[in-house]
């Protein structure tokens, strides 16, 4: 397994979204997935922290607050590697549009805010290819906070960055943590070709902007799903 698979050898396209919790990125990428599926394109969706090989261990560890910054980084790296090796790369080779809710940038931001060595974090993810398109759903921290707090399940310990010890008050800790993550995205937006989307605008407008961007950057006809044999003309 080569560490860096060249984009040229993979006909598929990789589209990723980044942003704070509550920025609306998951809703938006979910709608894009539905749109592409319904239009008959080869599309695959993957999200952060969802590998069946790792996820249950991560969940249990979070519940019992067993993760340090180092193991937090590594367990998420493991989760990503599994999805990358088993799904993202093969599907890109097979000419799919792969939609990824969060990508390596999430790790770059969160793990360094947690105090991990930034060089080490980037090294860990060096096997991951650059996406063809990354949208940063930019919202002010206060907006993210009000949306995240409004969720029924409330703020969890690690989402709020309680493990770092910024504050014993979860809302205050969340605000400090997310502010630092937001600043990390801001810095990365100068280093990587992020498309910045104003995520305070109405959801429908955001969706149109997202779809326009995809139509502009991809020749969608290349990603049409082959018709099922029964539908083929005689």
């Amino acid at each position, binding site marked *: 397994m*080569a560490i860096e698979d060249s984009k040229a050898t993979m006909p598929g396209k990789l589209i990723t979204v980044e942003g704070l919790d509550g920025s609306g990125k998951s809703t938006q990428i979910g709608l894009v997935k539905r749109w592409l599926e319904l239009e008959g394109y080869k599309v695959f969706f993957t999200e952060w922290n969802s590998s069946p090989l790792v996820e249950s261990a991560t969940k249990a560890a979070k519940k019992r607050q067993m993760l340090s910054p180092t*193991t937090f980084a*590594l367990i998420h*790296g493991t989760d990503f*590697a599994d999805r990358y090796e088993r799904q993202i790369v093969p599907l890109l080779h097979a000419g799919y549009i792969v939609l990824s809710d969060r990508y390596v940038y999430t790790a770059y931001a969160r793990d360094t805010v947690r105090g991990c060595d930034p060089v080490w974090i980037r*090294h860990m993810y060096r096997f991951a290819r650059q996406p063809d398109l990354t949208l940063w759903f930019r919202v002010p921290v206060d907006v993210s906070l009000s949306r995240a707090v409004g969720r029924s399940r409330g703020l969890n310990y690690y989402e709020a960055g309680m493990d770092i010890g910024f504050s014993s008050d979860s809302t205050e800790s969340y605000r400090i943590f997310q502010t630092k993550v937001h600043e990390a995205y801001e810095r990365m937006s100068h280093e990587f070709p992020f498309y910045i989307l104003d995520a305070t605008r109405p959801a429908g407008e955001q969706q149109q902007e997202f779809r326009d961007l995809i139509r502009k950057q991809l020749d969608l006809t290349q990603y049409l799903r082959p018709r099922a044999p029964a539908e083929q003309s005689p």
Partner: protein
Amino acid sequence: MTATTATTQRAYFGAGIPEINLVTLRGRLIVIEGPDSAGRSTQIRLLRDWLERSGYASAQTGLKRSRLVGKKLQDVMQGYSLGPLTFSLYYATDLADQIENVIVPALAADFIVLADRYVYTPIARDVVRGVEVRWIEGVFGFAIVPDVVLYLDVKPEVLAERVLGNLHYLDYWESGMDIHRDGDMYASFISYQQQIREQFIAMAPKKGFHIIDGDRDAEVVAQEVKDTVESTIDLP
């Protein structure tokens, strides 16, 4: 300005673990490497008996034993579905958790930590699978450099005989079946174990491993293990 003691300087392979201060760790870290059935657990038991008889407290650690992911990783490996990058990162997660929760507390309490395999096995396994050595070594940059590494060297044919004699079957991963293309499982075991062995022998001079011929009686091997430990590290 640093108050250097006469004892070994502790170091990380890379950036390390930010919140752990190595200066306070005065114990010793002894690693026993080698393939399955090379006699690692026997040697660790004998080494521990000797250390405890001499008055040194010891602690043990090994791959896939973390509270965090040890059990899960063992389960997942029954499903034969880990890619090489995932494999390494999973082992790294497991080891990092043990460094933080077993090795560091033990070293801080002046214990001798006996590690049944360490970073080197996942590194060797990955290199054999074509993963870039610089990447995998960098991932393990959080790990503490051990005081001594002993590699129990046993020829693959002898290993196969021992494994089959004990278990009557060859393990999927230890036979390299995930990267196997042709021939039967026995042939795969032999060629895979030989590749791993060559990695260890190549690493030995660079990393300062002590290669110990494991194809001898356990007592003879134990004597050499003990002599090597005594001559290479000063016990605290």
